[in-house]
Each structure stands twice: as structure tokens, then as C-alpha cells.
């Protein structure tokens, strides 16, 4: 599962990407570089309006870049129409609001939607849908109507629908932002499983706890890249974190509060486990 940058071509190979909304004065994304390799989990963070969602749409081949030196998604050129259409098959995009992603009147039909669009034979769709329902624990809900589902169930259905189409990489745009704690845990567990299976994931989030576990973090500031590197490096730079309007993971906040009480820790912990180790409660 270790990234092998030198052997396989990256799943996303983006350089000098620009995007501007019609009628806008400034670029929503400017001169952005991004490389994502097989098996990587890359978190993208940034304040509202920093261009995170725009990036998700561009990566999924759902918007046309204004310009780029090169913009490849799974080998497809995002600068041309055919490339974007091809990218939509390989790149799965999950959006924030589960309600606005469910098309069909019941769970199983919604999971089938992408495969129906790709004109798979009915028997193959049926097998794949069964597989997805089992994987996301939705078997008992297969005939359930969307408005009878909880937030977490809706988002899991949407996720099942996204990866029912075999994907090479996933882009998740704040998938837990509109969920209650139970729903958030359900979705995070599903994401963790996909990561463990080696699926590359670009995870857009405002939750620093969710970003803390990423292989790499990219921070956006008004459409430009303000930081790219490991999570520890970002959160260690207090001034940058403040400027970007971010925060610290809960464990980091706790460590800082302890430091104010005179119990400073050598390294800033990013997860609760790290915090417990740093405090000597665990090894």
C-alpha cells in the first residue's frame, strides 16, 4: 500500500490549474498543483470559499478548467471534453449533502443508477448492487425510500452508489459535514475501510480530526495552495493555522490547554492515541 511515485503514474497529476466562475472577478482556483498516487489518502483543508469544492468538481471531470499546464485524472486529460467524460468513470465524487445526491425512489435503485447509466446488463447490475448493499450494511434497507433514511444511511447509500461504478480514486467533498455524530461515525468507518483496501482518496474536510490521519494534507487559501505536506507540519505552524482559518485536532487543542497549565508536551499530538502516549497513559 506504500505509495510508489516512481513506478506508476499518479492518479491525479495536476499542474498550474486555474478555474474562474462565470462573471467572477478573481480565480476560484489559481496555479494549483496536485499529485495523488495509488493508495494515498490526501486531505484538503481550507476555510469556506477557499476553493475546496471547486477542486472536487474539477478533479471529477465535472467542470472545465480555465487553464492548466497539465491536468490528468487517471490518465485522462481534463482539459478536453472526452477526457472529462472518461474521468467521470474512474473518479468517484461524493458531495456534502446526501439528500441532493439520491435520485431514485429506493436505496437499491439509487445504488444501481451509475451502472444503469453505463448500460451494464441487468444481471451484472444486480450482483454489483447486492455486493455494495452488503458492504455498506444496507441490505435491510434496499426497498427503503430516501426520505425514510437517517442522514448517515443516506450518505452511505450515496457512497455505495458512487463506488458501485468501479473507481480508481475517490474524491469526498465534506461527506460528514451535514451528519449527526452517529451518521458521521458510520461514514468515517466506511471511508476508513476503503482506505485500508488501498483505494486512493482525496478527502476534503473542515474537520481537523479527520485531516489529522491523512498521508498528506493540502491547505487552500483563496484558491491557492498555502501548504502541502504532512499533517504534523501544518498543525505545528500555529501562525499558518490561524491565517488559514483552520483549527487544531481536538488532541492538539487539549495539549495546548495543558501547556498553558504548565504541562507542555514535546511534540504536538494529533490524535487521542498520540495524546495518551505523550501523557504517559499509553505506550
Amino acid at each position, binding site marked *: 500500500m506504500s505509495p510508489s511515485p516512481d513506478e506508476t503514474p499518479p492518479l491525479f497529476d495536476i499542474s498550474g490549474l486555474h478555474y474562474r466562475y462565470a462573471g467572477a472577478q478573481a480565480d476560484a482556483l489559481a496555479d494549483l498543483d496536485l499529485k495523488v498516487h495509488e493508495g494515498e489518502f490526501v486531505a484538503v483543508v481550507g476555510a469556506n470559499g477557499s476553493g475546496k469544492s471547486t477542486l472536487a*468538481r474539477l478533479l*471529477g471531470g*465535472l467542470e472545465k478548467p480555465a487553464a492548466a499546464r497539465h491536468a490528468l485524472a487517471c490518465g485522462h486529460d481534463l482539459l478536453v471534453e472526452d477526457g472529462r*467524460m472518461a474521468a*467521470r*468513470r474512474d473518479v*468517484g*465524487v461524493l*458531495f456534502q*449533502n446526501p*439528500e*441532493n*445526491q*439520491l*435520485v*431514485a*425512489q*429506493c436505496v*437499491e*435503485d439509487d445504488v*444501481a*443508477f*451509475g*451502472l*444503469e*447509466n*453505463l*448500460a*451494464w*446488463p*441487468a444481471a451484472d*447490475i*444486480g450482483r454489483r*448492487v447486492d455486493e455494495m448493499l452488503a458492504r455498506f450494511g444496507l441490505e435491510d434497507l434496499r*426497498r427503503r*425510500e*430516501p*426520505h425514510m433514511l437517517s442522514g448517515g444511511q443516506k450518505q452511505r447509500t*450515496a457512497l455505495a*452508489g*458512487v463506488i458501485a*461504478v468501479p473507481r480508481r480514486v475517490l474524491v469526498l467533498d465534506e461527506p460528514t459535514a451535514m451528519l449527526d455524530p452517529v451518521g458521521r461515525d458510520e461514514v468515517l468507518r466506511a471511508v476508513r475501510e476503503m482506505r485500508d483496501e488501498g483505494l486512493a482518496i482525496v478527502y476534503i474536510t473542515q474537520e481537523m480530526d479527520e485531516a489529522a490521519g491523512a498521508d498528506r494534507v493540502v491547505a487552500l487559501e483563496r484558491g491557492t495552495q498555502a501548504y502541502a505536506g504532512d499533517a504534523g507540519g501544518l498543525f505545528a505552524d500555529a501562525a499558518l493555522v490561524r491565517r488559514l482559518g483552520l483549527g487544531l485536532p481536538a488532541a492538539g487543542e487539549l495539549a495546548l490547554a495543558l501547556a498553558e497549565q504548565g504541562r507542555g508536551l514535546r511534540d504536538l499530538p494529533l490524535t487521542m492515541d498520540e495524546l495518551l502516549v505523550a501523557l504517559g497513559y499509553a505506550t
Partner: protein
Amino acid sequence: MKATIAQYYAGDSLLHRLDPRAKLVAVSALAVALFVRDSFAGLAVYAAAAVLAYLLSGVPLVWFWRAFRPLLWLVALTFVAQVVFAPGEPFFSFGFIHLSWRGLELAAFLSLRLVVLVLVGSVLTLTTPSMALTDGLAWLGRPLRRLRVPTDELALMVTIALRFIPTLLVELDTIMRAQRARGADFRRGGLRERTRSLVPVLVPLFVLSFRRADELALAMEARCYRPGAVRTRLHPLRAGWADAALLVAAAIVIAAGLLV
């Protein structure tokens, strides 16, 4: 909150398993026959067929009542209008009201006809999920594609519209509560004022709906939807002998009703 149109009762009766196209054709033909035929004998045949269909559907009577209730006033109005205004030799007169046997007969006939029609229609919608209904309609409308009518896209539109009715009802409720919390009163005033008080409700509902539509379109594209492209279905429509039998039975019933 529950949408009352096209309500479906999840079941596994013979009627549930029939192809929606066969059911649509049979019910439409029966509806036409109901309106063409104007004798009690014919009506009795169709009513018997409707009751049989109800028994076969395995749907509890209360569900039919729920579908029927909103139309009750229509039946009542039909009855009263016929009794009061029908021609014939009056056996009782009071002011402008003249009751005649002919009028009573006509009123009973027309109301009964309406009841049978609602019953037949309810059997269709209660035993067929709306998605299967729209699929059936899209298939039956296929000849229209020669005239460049995008029937499959229309069917998907209807499906999505039905899917979002409960969502929009919840949204409407939220907006009305928000307006009420700010002092709006939707119950008082004349028709004009009440209509006007709905504007601040409908405007945000429309704005939100357009935003939803944008996001939904994006999510559909992300799942490789392309208008006009060939699609397959998880549950393709499959007609069998039972469906042929239904059509034959419907033809026999209709003919019987027309001939008696």
C-alpha cells in the same frame, strides 16, 4: 408527512407482480369503457371486476379509503348536482329543488361510476411502485420517440419529482415555521391576504429547489448520467403469461360490460 398521490402499498400479491405496462393498459381500457357504457348492468360488471381486483390485491381496505377520501366531496357534489338539476317528472318539489326518480337514478349511476373508477385506479397505484409506473408509461410512450419526444428523460424527470415531494414538504414545513416564528400568520385574513402571505414561503422554497436541482444534476453527472445515452435498468420490465392473461381477462370484462 406523506404524499397521497400515487401511494404504493408494499405487498407480494399476484397484482403486485404483474407488469406495470399490462396493468396500465388494462386499467386505461377499463376506465374508457366505464365512461362509454351508460347502463347499470354494464356498471355492475365493471364494479364486480373492480371488487375482484381489490380482493386480489391484498391491500387493506383502509388504504383504499385513504386514496378515496380526498375524492369524497367530488362524489357527493356529483350526486347532489344530479339529484337537484336532473330532468324528469318530479315527485317532490321545494323551491328550486325538484326530486325525480330519473334524477335519483342518474345521480346514483354517476356517483357509482366515479367510485368504481377510483377503486380501479387505486388498485393500480397501490400495487405498482411509482417508479415501475413511470417505466411502464415510458415504454408505452416509446412510439412518441419517433416524434423526438424524449420519453425516457421525461420518465426520469417524473421519478425524480416524485422522489423529492416528501423532501419539499419537509422543507415547506421548515420555512413556514421559520416565518411563523417571525410573526407570519397563514390562517387569518381573506383569500387575498392569505395568498399574499404565501409569497415569502414560496420564494425561498423555489430558491432552495433550484439549488437542489443544481447539486442533483452534478451528482447525476458524477455517476455518469448523460441525457440521451442508452441506459439499462436494474429491474427491466418483463412481461409474462400472467400479464397476457390479465389483458385477456380485461378484454373479456370490458366486452361483457358493453354487451349486457
